[in-house]
């Protein structure tokens, strides 16, 4: 049974307990042991990186150093945390001066960043450590005939020399559930979450472009693997209805919810009631 340090960050536990619970339930099915990390908090997000590079390095190096103590890789369900941890890991492995500076601070807590464990996204361990063949064996309710548009999220995919994640991983993770992947022109485009504090309208417009592109390409559902992207594509649909009079009606599910459905979990177990755009069509489809 593979064991991982579970790093939740701040957004998933506060805003997406359904994501957290669905991830844990899916992990149980595949004997993935996720152990909540002790003594950690927020990764700081790209906002901290923008104003305080050293602080951002130190906070994330500290999280990595805590995980190094028990030797298990870190797993996170959030693209923001994944991007921060991966980038810091990658940077400090190659920059001796900053590493020294960061470790001087961590020493006060008896910690040291060595670079011996790897930060990983939950969907990446499903793909790499469990594997498509093993995932397939437990599927009992395939989502046949469901067209899903994937929003990967920028910090899962790029920069690829840092994230080492390929979009095909998530495509295959969708296809193993029996659903089909709907291609759409703006698949690479940002959801707009990062720019919200500086220009809210721009952030909303980016989400709108994205939803339009998905809808026009025939998507029935959307999957995301990040709370910030989730907010932009799910919650913003309510705002778009109000401000533009546009109704997209695209239920947005976190990936473990999709896999959970295919594993035969019911809607309460994966917290579908907490998704903002009602997910009824997917339930009707599966029960119909």
């Amino acid at each position, binding site marked *: 049974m593979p064991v991982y340090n579970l790093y*939740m960050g*701040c*957004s998933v*536990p*506060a*805003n997406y*307990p*359904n994501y*957290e*619970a669905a991830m*844990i339930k899916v992990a149980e099915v595949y004997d993935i042991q996720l152990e*909540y*990390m*002790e*003594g*950690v*908090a*927020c990764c*700081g*997000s*790209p*906002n*901290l*990186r*923008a*104003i*305080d*590079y*050293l*602080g951002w390095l*130190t*906070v994330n190096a*500290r999280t990595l150093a805590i995980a190094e103590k028990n030797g298990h890789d870190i797993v996170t369900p959030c693209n923001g945390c994944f991007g921060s941890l991966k980038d810091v890991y990658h*940077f400090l492995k190659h*920059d001796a001066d*900053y590493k020294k500076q960061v470790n001087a*601070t961590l020493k006060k*807590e008896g910690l040291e960043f060595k670079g011996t464990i790897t930060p990983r996204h939950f969907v990446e361990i499903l793909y790499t450590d469990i594997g498509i063949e093993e995932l397939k064996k437990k599927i009992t309710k395939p989502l046949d005939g469901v067209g899903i548009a994937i929003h990967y999220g*920028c*910090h899962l*995919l*790029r*920069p*690829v020399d840092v994230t080492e994640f390929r979009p095909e991983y998530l495509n295959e993770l969708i296809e193993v559930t029996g659903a089909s992947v709907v291609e759409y022109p703006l698949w*690479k*485009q*940002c959801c*707009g979450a*990062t*720019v919200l*504090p*500086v*220009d809210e309208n*721009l952030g909303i*417009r*980016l989400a709108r*472009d994205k939803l339009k592109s998905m809808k026009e390409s025939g998507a029935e559902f959307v999957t995301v693997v990040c709370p910030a992207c989730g907010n932009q594509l799910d919650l913003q649909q309510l705002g778009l209805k109000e401000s533009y009079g546009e109704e997209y009606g695209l239920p947005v599910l976190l990936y473990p919810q999709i896999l959970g459905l295919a594993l035969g979990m019911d809607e309460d177990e994966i*917290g579908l009631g*907490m998704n903002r755009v009602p997910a009824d069509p997917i339930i009707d489809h599966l029960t119909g």
Partner: protein
Amino acid sequence: MAETEEPAGPPATLIDPIEMSKLDSKFREEIHSMPNAEELSACFACSTCTAACPIANIWEYKPHQLIRMILLGMRDEVLSSNEIWLCLTCFQCQERCPQKVRVTDIFFDCKNLAAKEGKVPPNIVGLGKELLEKGQLYTVTADWEREDMGLEPDVPGLAVDPVKDILKETQTGKLVDGGE
């Protein structure tokens, strides 16, 4: 590309002449010495970064122009620009650069320099304050939702003090205190 209005005014190629005496010749070295900026001078201004950027059409200074401005030494213009803060950090520019210039990373360097001079949008300072005071950007308020999902009401293992302690001593502390 995002659907946006066309900016008014002349096309970006018709720009005012650059005031040579105002250039800061050390700016390129300053950026060059910062994290992930080693390839800065490899830029040959092909503007692939601009073609990749989903919001460059609303930027007065396009991504390739900002890189060129850094190389020329237009320090004030770059560090006072809105563009560096509007950057989505989507890394599309960086990913496509044929010269391996880490464009998005370099904009992060610019933001860090701007932050040292206190040139930060108020909402971003607000997020810094949040991190400094709470150790996180989001705090659990609806713990019943967590309990409904069979989760602990409080996030297991959460410890905010170490984060606050680190950021007190770094640029976040200076920026937030200086702004009060």
